[in-house]
């Protein structure tokens, strides 16, 4: 046993009360073992990780329990002793490498300092070690790249660097706290594969903390499920995923969208036609920069980014169209242009055969729901005002009717109308997303564009929102454009799916067909890299669409 946690309690002492983030946990991991810890937000999984390495920040504190590392209780160690363990014996990887690497220091500095903090070797030796380490995590031209700064790397490469730093002193244990959450699915697959491989090679124990059970399926040896600061169930992968015992585990597994429930509808009535749409985000040009661009040999460098290239698409009345693609592919831009809140550069969009223009958005027929339920509601307005403002302004109702009118839509979206006089901050994320949907519905649209509306939510709540969308689609015959980076969610909900890649639609068709028999190589790569709780082997061979 490399790590044994006995009755660990970590509490946060806030102004109002004590939050028992970690509440009496027992946990073991043997050397070389890869252990997944899954739980929803607020379950205490990250706090547990930080408790082990003792990086808790005020007002968090370990109040009880022992953590034995190699047989020694490390909760009692002073800061100096702890320092010699951190990075040497126990390393940690955080969620977003963009944040965890110091943006103003070079990769070289940040790697070498990690080596020199624990080893009495020369700078040159340390540098060799660092380059070696970068090569191991699959960074090409490591000797040159090591001089770069974090911002010159892509997200996936930064996380590779973070892993290289964590591994550089060959620690006994690595704690990885949601290290792939910020990454695209193809990159995530590589990181998963890489981490697993390196840990197995070095016989390093790994604690992988995540909210996404499916990620763990092909990665870990054992899984622990956390809920409300407690570990409710621990066991081997197969046991937990195939035969869950605890009701919470069951609920978690059932919430993961599986398969496809929607057939393509046989309608040819197009509600929206998009023809040759192009959107370019221009860099700010100044007189002087233009002057220099003119003389520049390599114009490629100053070429503006194209968000959407010559895209054509029809959206059928009453369908759920899934739009899927990795971050930066232009899917959100597409949504905003269709809903008329972003200007296009060229091309035409017709709604019911009438052209939509940005400058004169007057129609309420196309509405949009946004990703972040925390920023999409004006924090200074009551729910009733948030929902009723537009209907009143557009004279759908008058002020006296607002209470009744709002109640109806809150009911439709599964929120008790009693809460309409509250402010957004008094609601949870899922509730807010329902309110946002209610707000859009209150102006009686016929098309609803959902932009990543479930990606900020926990998986159990995600399922509820998806069901709400399905219900609205059926009962109100609402056309829905469902934009998401999450393939399984899109597969689950949509009739048809459009796969976007670098501003273009590379594949469009019946969801079932696209997901079972992808024709475009990018779709194939996406699907191949999709973690799936049914499959237990990592098989991420396709590296066609990666950075590097």
């Amino acid at each position, binding site marked *: 046993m490399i790590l044994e946690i006995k009755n660990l309690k970590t509490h946060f002492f806030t102004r109002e009360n004590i939050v028992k983030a970690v509440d009496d946990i027992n946990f073991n991991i043997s050397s070389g073992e890869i252990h997944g810890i899954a739980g929803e937000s607020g379950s205490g999984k990250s706090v547990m990780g930080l408790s082990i390495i003792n990086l808790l920040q005020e007002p968090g504190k370990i109040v009880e329990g022992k953590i034995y590392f190699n047989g020694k209780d490390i909760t009692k160690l002073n800061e100096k002793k702890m320092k010699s363990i951190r990075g040497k014996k126990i390393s940690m990887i955080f969620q977003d490498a963009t944040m965890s690497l110091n*943006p103003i220091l070079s990769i070289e500095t940040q790697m070498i300092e990690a080596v020199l903090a624990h080893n009495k070797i020369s700078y040159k030796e340390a540098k060799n070690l660092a380059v070696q380490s970068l090569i191991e995590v699959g960074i090409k031209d490591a000797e040159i790249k090591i001089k770069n700064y974090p911002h010159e790397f892509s997200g996936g490469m930064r996380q590779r660097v973070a892993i290289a730093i964590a591994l550089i002193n060959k620690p006994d244990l690595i704690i990885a706290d949601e290290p792939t959450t910020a990454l695209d699915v193809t990159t995530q697959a590589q990181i998963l594969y890489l981490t697993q491989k390196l840990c197995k090679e070095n016989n390093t124990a790994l604690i992988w903390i995540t909210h996404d059970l499916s990620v763990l399926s092909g990665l870990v040896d054992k899984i622990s499920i956390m809920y409300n600061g407690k570990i409710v169930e621990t066991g081997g992968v197969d046991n937990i995923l195939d035969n869950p015992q605890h009701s919470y585990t069951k609920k978690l597994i059932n919430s993961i969208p599986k398969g496809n429930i929607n057939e393509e509808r046989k309608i040819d009535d197009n509600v929206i036609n998009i023809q040759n749409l192009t959107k370019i985000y221009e860099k700010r040009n100044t007189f002087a*920069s233009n002057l220099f661009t003119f003389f520049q040999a390599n114009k490629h460098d100053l070429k503006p980014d194209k968000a959407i290239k010559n895209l054509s698409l029809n959206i059928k009345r009453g369908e759920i169209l899934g739009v899927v693609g990795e971050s930066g592919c232009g899917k959100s831009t597409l949504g905003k242009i269709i809903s008329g809140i972003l200007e296009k550069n060229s091309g035409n969009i017709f709604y019911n055969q009438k052209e939509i223009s940005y400058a004169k958005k007057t129609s309420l027929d196309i509405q949009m729901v946004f990703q972040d339920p925390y920023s999409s509601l004006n924090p200074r307005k009551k729910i009733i005002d948030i929902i009723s403002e537009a209907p009143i302004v557009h004279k759908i109702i008058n002020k006296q009717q607002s209470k009744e009118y709002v109640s109806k839509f809150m009911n439709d979206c599964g929120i008790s109308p009693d809460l309409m006089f509250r402010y957004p901050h008094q609601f949870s994320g899922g509730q807010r997303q329902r309110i946002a949907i209610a707000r859009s519905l209150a102006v009686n649209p016929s098309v609803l564009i959902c932009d990543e509306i479930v990606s900020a939510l926990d998986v159990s709540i995600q399922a509820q929102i998806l069901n709400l969308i399905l219900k609205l689609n059926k009962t109100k015959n609402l056309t829905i454009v469902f934009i998401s980076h999450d393939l399984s969610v899109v597969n689950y909900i949509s009739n048809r799916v459009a796969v976007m890649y670098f501003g273009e639609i590379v594949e469009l068709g019946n969801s079932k067909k696209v997901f079972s028999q992808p024709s475009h190589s990018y779709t194939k790569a996406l699907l191949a890299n999709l973690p799936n709780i049914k499959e237990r082997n990592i098989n991420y061979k396709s590296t066609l669409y990666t950075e590097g």
Partner: protein
Amino acid sequence: MLFINYKNLSMLIFLTNRIIQSFIVLLIMSLLVFAAVYAIGNPIDVLINPEASEEEKIKTIKNLGLDKSLFEQYYIFLQNAFKGELGYSFVHNRPAISLILERLPATLELTISALLIAIIIGIPLGTIAGLNPDNFISKSILAMSIFFFSLPTFWVGLILIMIFAVSYNFFPSTGRGDTVEIFGFYFSFLTFDGLKHLALPSINLALYPLALVIRLTFAGIQETLPLDFIKFARAKGLSRFRIIYYHLLKYILIPIVTVIGLQFSVLIAFAVITESIFAWPGMGRLIIESITLLDRPVIVAYLLVTVFIFMLVNLIVDILYSLLDPRIRISDK
């Protein structure tokens, strides 16, 4: 073959851009300043001998070019400005620009030493306060910074003279002390007497930026401490020293440099007060005298020179910024 490195190129674009912008700003400022200063009384009334006859007055007005219209005068001024002449002082009968340049070293000496005091004392104090915000020393430092922040410069100046020069004779009350000539300019920080004279005025001028630096450092540390990269650095097992000096201070230096750059201009302005209290022969005193004597060319030249200094400092700050922060490609800003 001509090879243009991208980074150098964007720097060049940036510089060209800024210089063009600065030039336009200077041009507009000069017009505004010229028109504004034109609005102050008639210099002839102030300077001319009370007994001068009308004829004499008219002759002088003509000689000084004051009989021409505002636009004609401005045109002439611009023509000369391109030749590097910003007019002749009415009072001193010397080129206004050389009057100002003569006094510039004294003002720069004062402002730079005030800034140095602020930085050398302010950053360590701010760091101490930022790392342990709840202990007594940190609270005292912060309270002190607000106190310094609120003190009126002129009042403090007099109190300083009262205590240190009149009551205790530790420092000379006013003036600049012995100077040493370097490249034709006179500096006093190289002599002991000069340093003694420099002490009180620079402390007086330093209080405000000192408070600012303390508070900025404090705020920067407070904001940076919870960031992931500090956590990650700790997880690497780095020493406290390295985390503070390498990861923390280097990071927060970026906003501090910007603010200090802006402060430099503010200090040049506030030096007007300090210089008049401490009889410091800088250009701040020159402008006050010139305003009372309506020495128009000097006022215009002073304002243009200060605007020029501000723009130069801003430019330097921007370049420093890009050196300190590798994320910034200057042209993208």
